[in-house]
């Protein structure tokens, strides 16, 4: 398969993640959408690493960047879920629309 096929899949995945973050009324869905977005970026990184230009045969920088993204996504998921649990015990809800103490 050529590079653009992988890029199209990654773009679709990014779009689905974006809709998930923007449209669902549940903080857990927001987290899942974030994971989808990060995964789409990862797929782009690995695909570009596979189709790298001439003279860069030995380089694996794209894959290493993807490993760092996975590391940071793991840390982000742990912290974000801790924050969600805290929000739940403080506000008794995890709807992002209801958490508006700072609004007025």
């Amino acid at each position, binding site marked *: 398969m050529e*590079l653009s096929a992988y890029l199209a899949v990654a773009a679709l995945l990014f*779009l*689905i993640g974006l*809709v998930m973050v923007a449209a669902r009324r549940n903080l*857990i869905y927001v987290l899942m959408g974030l994971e*989808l977005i990060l995964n789409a970026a990862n797929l782009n990184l690995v695909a570009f690493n596979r189709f790298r230009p001439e003279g860069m045969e030995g380089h694996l920088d794209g894959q290493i960047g993807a490993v760092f993204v996975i590391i940071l996504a793991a840390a982000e998921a742990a912290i974000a*879920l801790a924050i969600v649990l805290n929000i739940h015990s403080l506000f008794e809800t*995890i709807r992002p629309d209801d958490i508006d103490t700072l609004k007025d």
Partner: protein
Amino acid sequence: MGEVLAFWFFAALTIGCALLALLHRNVVNSAFALLGTLLGLAGFYVLLAADFLAMTQVLIYAGGILVLILFGLMLTPPVTNERRFGRILVAVAVVGLGAVAFWEKARGAVWHAAAREELAAPAGTVREIGLEFLRRDSWLLPFELASVVLLAGLVGAVYIARRRFPREDV
């Protein structure tokens, strides 16, 4: 031929499960649909000759982050009465924006990177990635910083998630 078939299989698995996760009303089913997406991405990594990354994807995403999300689901109440109209409006807006970006990309110069030739796959990437991580003039500093970040994340998550607001009913 086999590679093309495998690509379409993984593409269908990834996108289909992601759509299912997006559209399903039950959040537990959405989380399990996300599992299909993450495993499909691991398959893509195998197709792209990134064996170490495929293993890492299965271990950390499918094994770790998904379990974390399921725990988050179990510890929080389900959200009922989502307003459908606003949701559909936002979805249409985002998809429209994405379609515009997609079209621009498809017809424009950004996409011409696709003309590159696929290079011969290396025999395995585990050894090379390990050496890259520990070479001083390459990725050593980010690698060590990542361990510091993980430690800080671990301590921070435990600190934030501890029960500070005692509820009367417990």
